[in-house]
C-alpha cells in the first residue's frame, strides 16, 4: 500500500481517497462476502467501512497500518450486518449463498453442511476463521485486527473449527434419524 497515498487522504484529499478506496475494496469485499455469505450485505458492509475509513482516517497514527485498521472497521461493519441479517432471518434463509462459485474440490454435501454450520457461528468466530483460512493471517495479526488477546482468537478459532468440523463429520456418518439426508 502506498504510504503517501494514505497520508494524502488523511489530509482530506478526496482524489487520493478515491484511489485508496479502489486499492482496498477488493480485499475488504472478499472478506466481507465470506463472513456474511451474502453479496448485498457484503456490499453494504463495504460501503459503511469506506465511509468510516474516510471519516476517521486522520486518527490513524501509522499510515502503514491501514490494512489492519481497515479490516478492523470492516469486521465491525460485518457484525452490524449480521445483526440485521438475523432480524431478517426468515427471508435470508430462502437465499442460497449468493454469488458464491462452487469449488469442485469439495462435495456438494460438504459445502452445504459448511454453509449451514458457518451461519450458526458468531460474527467474531466467522471473522477469525476467514482471517486465518482465507487471508492467511497469523494469530497475532488476527488479534491485532480484532483487538482482542491472542488467547481469545485461539478460543474463537477452536470453537468455530469444532462446529464446522462436526458439521462435516455428522454429514459423513450414516443416517440415524428418519428424514435426514446424508
Amino acid at each position, binding site marked *: 500500500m502506498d504510504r503517501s497515498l494514505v*497520508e494524502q487522504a*488523511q*489530509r*482530506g484529499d*478526496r482524489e487520493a*481517497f*478515491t484511489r485508496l*478506496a*479502489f486499492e482496498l*475494496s*477488493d480485499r*475488504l*469485499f*472478499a472478506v466481507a*462476502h*465470506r463472513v456474511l455469505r451474502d*453479496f448485498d450485505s*457484503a*456490499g453494504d458492509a*463495504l*460501503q*459503511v*467501512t*469506506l*465511509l468510516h475509513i*474516510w*471519516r*476517521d*482516517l*486522520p*486518527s*490513524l*497514527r*501509522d*499510515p502503514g497500518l491501514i490494512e489492519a485498521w481497515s479490516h478492523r472497521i470492516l469486521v465491525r461493519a460485518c457484525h452490524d450486518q449480521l445483526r440485521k441479517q438475523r432480524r431478517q432471518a426468515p427471508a435470508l434463509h430462502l437465499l442460497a*449463498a449468493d*454469488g*458464491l*462459485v*462452487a*469449488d469442485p*474440490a*469439495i462435495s456438494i454435501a*460438504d*459445502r452445504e453442511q*459448511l454453509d449451514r454450520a458457518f451461519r450458526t457461528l458468531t460474527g467474531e468466530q466467522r471473522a477469525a*476463521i*476467514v482471517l486465518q*483460512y*482465507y487471508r492467511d493471517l497469523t494469530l497475532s495479526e488476527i488479534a491485532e485486527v480484532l483487538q482482542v488477546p491472542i488467547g481469545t482468537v485461539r478460543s474463537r478459532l477452536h470453537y468455530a*473449527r469444532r462446529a*464446522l*468440523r462436526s458439521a*462435516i463429520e455428522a454429514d459423513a456418518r450414516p443416517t440415524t434419524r428418519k428424514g435426514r439426508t446424508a
Partner: protein
Amino acid sequence: MNRERDFDQTLRHWLEDGADQAPERFIWAALDNVGRTAQRGAWQASLEGFLMKFKSAAPYLGVAAVIVLAIAAYQVFVAPNIGNAGPSPSPSPTPRLFTSADLQNIVLTGANAPDSLTVDATQSGAAALLVPLRPGGPTIDQTAFVDALMTNLSTTETGGYVSWSALFATAGDAAVAFAFVSNEHGSGGWGMSRSSVGPGLGDESVTYTGAAYEIFPRNIVHIWRVDNLVLAAVAVGDVAVGDANADRLLAIAQLMDDRAR
C-alpha cells in the same frame, strides 16, 4: 493429523469460493457519501473513542476520579510551590535546534507526565502534526517538518487536555508554522477568539478560546514557539466546569515550556 490437515484443506477450498472483486457500484456509492462527509479531526476521533470506553467504565471510575482530582489539585496547585528556590535561570541567548528525541521530554507522555495526569492516547509523526488543523482546510507546508508528538491527557466526559509539539528544521520554519497553526485557530480557521493577552510563553505565543475541533463548546488553546519547536497545550470541554480548567492548562503549558528551555 491427516484428518486435521484434510479438514483445514476443505475449509480453505470452501473459503476460496466467493467474490474476489468488489463491484464498482458499491465503491462509487460509498464515495458518493464520502463527498458529502467531513473527516473528523484526530482529537475528536481519539476523544470520542476514549469517551466510549469511559462511558462503559464510568460506574467503576467514579470513586477513582474523586481521588485523582484530589491528587491533581495537590500536585498542580500545592506541590510546585514546595521547595521553590527562586526564579529559574535565564534562557540561553544562543538559538539552538531541538531534535526528535527532545519531543519525548517536552510533550507530557506516560514516562514524564506528573502523577496527577493520565496519558490516554499518543500520536506521532505527520498524523500528530495534522491533529489541530481543520480537515479539508488549507494544507500546512511540510517541507521543513521533522516530527511531531501529541498526547491526550486525563480525558473525562466533561473535558480533557492535549499536549502537542511539532518540530521543524529551523526556527524560521517553525515561525512560519506557528503563524499557520495560530491562524487556523482564529478567524481564518476554527473561528476561536484570540485573547488580547497571550500566555507569555516561549519566543512568541497566543491564546485562543471558544468552540473548535467539533467536540466541546468551550476550549482554551495556548500555542507558542521555542526556537524550532511549535508547541500547544489545549483544554477541551466545559472549561472551569469539568476537569479541564484554565489554571490547570496553564500549569501544563508552563511545564512544557520549562522543559523546552
